[in-house]
């Protein structure tokens, strides 16, 4: 297996060439011991590929393998039995995966929740809600563990007590972004972190579009929460369509740039996310719609608080704007906002800017 790992971890050599080498020579060990001259005249390797292989032979592969074991990182090449069958079906399946934790269960429906890193509280909130609901209903959630929507979706899944898998654009021993260290640790206990990059590889921009194909490849359904006109989430959605997966997009306000990408997807025929229950019905997991819960809130609120609450939405509003809209004085509005905040109906996201929870 050491030699298989050695072959998989050669930098600057494409997956396709690695696969061809292995198929021609039978296994990794054989590839390791090919003479240089035969490499040069193999017919499909270029000069720089040969250099890369020769250079890779010089490194201490045994030590690296030992580190892999110490860090409890599993090495799963494409020919291994546990290699996800979903991935084998895509055209450019990664040569090997590195896993900390588990790999997605092939018998459970898996849903990817993707979206902008710089999202609005709206996108983040909805991602959290979907993640939680899906996990509660036994689905597994796949995402990129990035800031914004990705992280929120996965955090939601953890809250819902389900399994979630983070696909990274760097080595699995690196937590990127760093502030998600808590999420990174939790995911390893309730699912796993997966990457095609060997351990220690830093998060470079080029790796991120590549990992998107794994996200879409590992999932059966893709939910796009918020995306700009040009965004990585749309790449994932496009790849998913190529791979024949279902894509759903979350509608947002028409004047929000962060929803433009989603609206485009919907126009192109993507499913529309109305509610998590609705999604499960569409996926055939549930067959009846449950009652809406929103009316319940209003009954417990005081009349005046209700006026303020009804002015708030999922996009932040400042106190001054609320004063204009409600006609209350500054004191009254602040007082009611604090009551609502303490009851947990609204949230302050920047100084004196509030949104509904």
């Amino acid at each position: 297996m050491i030699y298989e790992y050695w072959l998989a971890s050669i930098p600057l050599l494409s997956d396709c060439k690695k696969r061809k080498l292995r198929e021609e020579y039978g296994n990794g060990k054989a590839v390791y011991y090919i003479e240089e001259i035969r490499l040069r005249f193999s017919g499909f390797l270029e000069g720089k590929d040969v250099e890369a292989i020769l250079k890779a032979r010089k490194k201490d592969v045994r030590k690296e393998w030992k580190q892999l074991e110490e860090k409890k990182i599993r090495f799963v090449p494409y020919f291994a039995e546990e290699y996800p069958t979903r991935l084998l079906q895509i055209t450019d399946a990664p040569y090997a995966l590195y896993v900390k934790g588990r790999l997605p269960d092939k018998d459970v429906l898996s849903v990817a929740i993707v979206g902008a890193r710089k999202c609005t509280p709206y996108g983040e909130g909805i991602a959290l809600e979907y993640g939680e609901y899906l996990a509660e209903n036994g689905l597994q959630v796949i995402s990129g563990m990035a800031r914004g929507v990705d992280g929120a979706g996965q955090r939601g899944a953890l809250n819902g007590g389900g399994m979630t898998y983070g696909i990274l654009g760097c080595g699995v021993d690196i937590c990127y972004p760093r502030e998600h260290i808590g999420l990174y640790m939790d995911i390893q206990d309730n699912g796993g972190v997966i990457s095609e990059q060997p351990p220690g590889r830093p998060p470079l921009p080029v790796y991120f579009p590549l990992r998107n194909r794994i996200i879409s490849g590992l999932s059966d359904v893709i939910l796009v929460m918020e995306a700009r006109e040009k965004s990585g989430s749309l790449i994932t959605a496009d790849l998913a369509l190529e791979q024949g997966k279902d894509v759903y997009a979350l509608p947002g306000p028409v004047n929000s740039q962060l929803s433009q990408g989603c609206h485009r997807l919907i126009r192109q025929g993507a499913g529309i996310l109305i509610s998590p229950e609705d999604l499960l019905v569409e996926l055939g997991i549930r067959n009846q719609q449950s009652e809406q819960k929103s009316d319940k809130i209003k009954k417990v609120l005081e009349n005046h608080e209700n006026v303020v609450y009804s002015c708030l939405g999922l996009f932040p509003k400042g106190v001054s704007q609320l004063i204009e809209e409600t006609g209350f004085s500054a004191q009254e509005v602040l007082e009611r906002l604090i009551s609502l905040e303490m009851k947990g109906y609204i949230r302050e996201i920047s100084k004196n800017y509030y949104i509904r929870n």
Partner: protein
Amino acid sequence: MSFSTVLSAAIQGLHVEMIQVEADVSNGLPMFHMVGYLSSEVKEASERVRTAIRNSGIQLPAKKMVINLAPATVRKRGASFDLPIALAVLASMGIFPEESLKDTLVIGELSLDGSIKAVSGVLPVVMCAREEGCKRCILPRQNIQEGILVQGIEILGADNLTEICRCLNGEQELESFVGGIHHYYDRGCVQQNQKEEVLDYSDIQGQEAVKRATEVAVAGGHNLLFVGPPGSGKSMIAKRVPTILPPLTQEESIEITKIYSVLGMIDKENPLMTGRPFRSVHHTVTKAALIGGGMIPVPGEISLAHGGVLFLDELTEFQKPVLEVLRQPLEEGQIRITRSQGNFVFPANFILICAMNPCPCGNYPDFNRCTCTQAQIQQYLGKISQPFLDRIDICAEAPKIQYEMLAGAKKQESSARIRERVCRAREIQKKRYGQKRVLTNSMLNVNELKEFCRLERREEALMRQAFASLGLTARAYHKILKVARTIADLDESEKIEESHLKEAIGYRTIDKKYWGR
């Protein structure tokens, strides 16, 4: 008579030292020698004095003249010793009797033609002279208005050296006043000054929440932070804060005028400061300029803002160490500067008003326009340290201005109405704290909080709930109590009600932990 003494004064920081200017004229090699720990501008006085005396038509004898400025341990600076030196020399030459200068303090700068020029720091010098038991002061004529602010001392104003000599010989009377601040009020200068206040809160359309927060801050002397996008009127609101501050008392006027006098920043004709100062400081300011500095320190911006407002626009652009030096004065209401020359204490009791953007581009949380990443916002906010934030009681958001706000013709509340409420709240605080060190709610310490901000059971329960659900810290809790006390005072309510607490919670400072989540 070959020896004489004239009384003068030197200013060290804001403190006045009485200086004896001694002159001795004796036989020996002709020379003019000055001693007594003099800075170079005082040493240069020898040339000015000799020329001025000659140009006043008095022949200097070819004798040895020694001038001593005592006490020799005090560093003498500035040009205000010219006149006392000249008079000491003339007295020892016997031009006029030395007794005529008894109990008389003299300051003034000489011109080569013998005329007398204005100097700075007249007010504190004259005040000190009165305390030391002087009967009269001879001042440059241009400084008279400043001198007569001091009660119960005779002020003589002179234009040139000849005039003084003739007066001291009893040949001519100098223009003379017995001082008292009433002179000033009688002349109607106060009204005149107030007319210049053209700023008013009725100029600002909308922004109700910010105006209310400002009112609360001023009523309780709380420090204030505005957060808002560029061009949202943060500075506009801050500039109008002096219009709602309670008017200055006479003692406060004098205290502030003293500071400005030392720095030579007052109007010679209307020297008394009747409006509260508003100091807007640019973010390139240095530590020394802010708190005061120099080998012998002179007061800085925070002392100039004493009794008024210090406004720091673009708070995040200030150098971090510069902001940190504000911590001690914000706590104590004064700044203590230590030099090898000694300790200098300058008053610095001001309301701090800061303004900043919520993120580097200023548009957060408008997601369509904000281009900053989370990390950038965190870094931006990280420029302000927690201990500094802890000294700010009230934080208010200044929203982007909508067109309706600009075009609106709604009648806005005038500054005078707001000021009335502020004054009433201050009055209540004064009555409550009586003879205590505390003047406003913002100065309460933890023990006093327990005494004056006691909560009833219902309010107590509200705070407990807020503590848990909003994740307050102990510090935030105390600040909320103080601000709630002020809001209750504005309401003229003895007891802190639930509604007061809730409003105060709304003003709590930005908490970095929750920002941008």
